[in-house]
């Protein structure tokens, strides 16, 4: 019991549910299954991206290039679809994911082989990737009428009342849960973040683990590139501009420590849902959408403060005050 109440994810889930219930008091339809499905669908991409960012942050790094990566990969599949509508959409999904993977691997390689701090590398590639969209598209947009029917439908087809987009997110959440809790790679990612020195002693290659983390964040960004373009039916330089910080915000709210090693899949999911519920709830309770930025900013600050106070380094215990917890 004590373990649960100490748990950040538990409290965050409570907060998210209270937000839904409080909004429902104002507008009863808000807690209906249909509306909840809409909210989840709206949050799906943020959930996927937050998982990618989580893996990176766990290894004491940060990926600020995710949104640019998403936009570039999205533009590439948009152009391919516009030019060759006969290519099946699953192949395009794979293409987007591979594009993202390569861009992520480029980040990871600079960090691993040259040893540049991740914040600098991804700050640089943030502008490089986005600038490249302009170059490959010649400054033009890809508009709704140029996409094939399948391309647009592959995020929308409903199954058991949920659109495909939501199912992709669910599948990735489950996949990451298994990855992070049940595989050697997942546990190595935690180990590197908790104590790099000890990880070295345990035979874990820190640079390679960080590289792999950036491959994950890159591949997920790329996959979301397709999802984004398909969902909003537009490919442009402006896609997801500034979204990199929303992704970091979801992680921070989800209790993922920027110092590395602390954070869970559930935390990332609820962090993203928090932002998703908020953006859906504000118009319902009559708050101007212009307030959203300030509120999410305040939420980030609050989350950091709460995380820091709960993760305070346990004081060195020398005096025999009581027996060890066992």
């Amino acid at each position, binding site marked *: 019991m004590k373990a649960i109440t100490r748990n950040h994810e538990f409290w965050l889930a409570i907060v998210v549910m209270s937000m839904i219930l409080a909004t429902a008091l104002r507008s009863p339809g808000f807690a209906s299954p249909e509306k909840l499905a809409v909210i989840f669908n709206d949050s799906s991409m943020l959930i996927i991206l937050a998982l990618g960012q989580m893996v990176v942050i766990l290894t004491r790094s940060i990926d600020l290039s995710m949104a640019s990566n998403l936009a570039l990969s999205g533009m590439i599949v948009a152009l391919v679809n516009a030019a060759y509508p006969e290519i099946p959409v699953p192949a395009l999904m794979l293409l987007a994911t591979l594009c993202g993977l390569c861009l992520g691997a480029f980040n990871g390689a600079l960090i691993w082989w040259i040893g540049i701090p991740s914040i600098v590398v991804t700050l640089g590639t943030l502008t490089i990737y986005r600038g490249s969209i302009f170059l490959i598209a010649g400054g033009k947009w890809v508009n709704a009428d140029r996409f094939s029917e399948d391309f647009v439908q592959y995020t929308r087809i409903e199954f058991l009342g949920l659109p495909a987009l939501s199912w992709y997110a669910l599948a990735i959440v489950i996949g990451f849960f298994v990855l992070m809790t049940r595989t050697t790679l997942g*546990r190595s990612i935690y180990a590197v973040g908790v*104590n790099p020195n000890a990880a070295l*002693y345990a035979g874990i290659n820190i640079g390679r683990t960080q590289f792999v983390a950036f491959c994950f964040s890159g591949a997920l960004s790329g996959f979301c590139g397709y999802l984004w373009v398909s969902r909003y039916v537009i490919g442009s330089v402006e896609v997801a501009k500034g979204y990199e910080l929303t992704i970091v915000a979801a992680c921070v709210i989800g209790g993922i420590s920027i110092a590395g090693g602390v954070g869970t899949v559930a935390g990332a999911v609820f962090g993203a849902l928090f932002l998703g519920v908020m953006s859906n709830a504000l118009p319902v309770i009559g708050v101007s959408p212009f307030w959203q930025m300030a509120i999410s900013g305040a939420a980030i600050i609050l989350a950091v403060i709460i995380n820091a106070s709960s993760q305070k380094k346990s004081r060195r*215990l*020398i*005096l025999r005050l009581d027996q060890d917890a*066992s």
Partner: protein
Amino acid sequence: MSEPLLRLSKITKTFPGVRALHAVDLELYPGEVTALIGENGAGKSTLVKAMTGIYQPDDGEIFFAGRKVTMPTPHAAFQLGITAIHQETVLFDELTVAENIFLGHSPKGRFNLIDWPKMNANARLLLDDIGASHIAADIRLKDVSIANKHLVAVARALSVEADVVIMDEPTAALSHKEIEDLFSLVEKLKSDGKAILFISHKFDEIYRLADRYTVFRDGEMVGNGVLADTQQSQIVEMMVGRSVEQVFPSRAVEIGPPVLNVKGFSHPTEFADIEFDLHKGEVLGFYGLVGAGRSEVMQALFGMTPSTSGTITSNGQVISPKSPADAIKAGIVYLPEERGKQGVILDLPIFQNISLPSLSQTSRNGFLRMAQEFELARNYASRLDLRAASLSQHAGTLSGGNQQKVVIAKWLAIQPNIIILDEPTKGIDIGSKAAVHTFMGELVEQGLSVIMVSSEIPEILGMSDRVVVMREGRLAEVFDNDKSLTAEALIRCAAGIGEQAA
């Protein structure tokens, strides 16, 4: 007489400014315990790291079961069957006890996924095996005490089928009973035919457990043999070199009135009811086991630790240092144990390291005056016989002993009344050690008062006027260091052995 299972030949390892190992040999035999003996800084831990793939030797060869091997990574050492309990606990606070034990070789179930129930069960068995049945396997390591963390480290080392087990000061943080459990474990490993390298400072442990010994001094192997044929005094002579008795400077200083009085000094978790006086011209030794809370008390005196209570009186005035800056103003300075992390700023030039706390003296209206800074640095560097090519070179390019001199110079430059030295000669060469000791003598002759925290008994006995012994965050006893004070008495007091027997 069997063949050695692991043989190291002419291993050499250098770091910038330090020759850590120079052409050392070592042989480990199956079913035998070999003790590796040497002072702090003799190169023991470096050797352990070279044997476990963490460091790559610059030169030399390693033979395992007669076959030449290399260990490019810790994993390679692991696969050969070499496992180590390292001196520092290299574990993961945020992971569970079981995972700390099995990270990297967790039991796998279907689809090659980690089998948590099995991992917890295996961890349980291992912990029970080493007499640590009181540690739960599924709690996070950060909720485990320091002593228990060491037991987890032992369990981790034994979680693999290893033929060579290295133990680097495994008893340093353990209680009497835990040490006994560990010893029976070593006996068991021995009877299983493992080759064991046992590193310890404590001769009683060595004589009880080990079959062979190898002595290191200043990164070189100076002797080895069978322990049963060797007197303790011979080994000590090898360790120290030249003469058995370390020479400490004699001094004739008039002990003056108290300059510092500490009463009821307490902290919620680290120490309680600390009371002592420090007199003018006195060297007050602080002895205790590692983790007894000595450094914590000193850092609190130096203003590093908030939430302390009690009264500190310095030269008749009650002071309550809230930060090191406050303590320095009151004339109290602290030479930290972790020189590289807390003492010198490695990437700043020597002169800037020395002048850092004295900038208000060398500057005018807050503006730097380089000439004055250099003069100050030059003055103290030559007093301490600092060996450096220039005062503008980074402190990180100096050897450990010379770095320590930079830290001492930094503190002398502010002309303090009280200087607290925390393990002042840890990990520095014999020559620098002697220089530091001589210098301490000079300091008290000039009317300073010195508090010296040390874990080296010869240093404590050789330098202190009185000795305070701490145990588990409390003051155990204060001894006058007359001829009757013995190393034995200090150790018993620090470990609380006398009380348990009673």
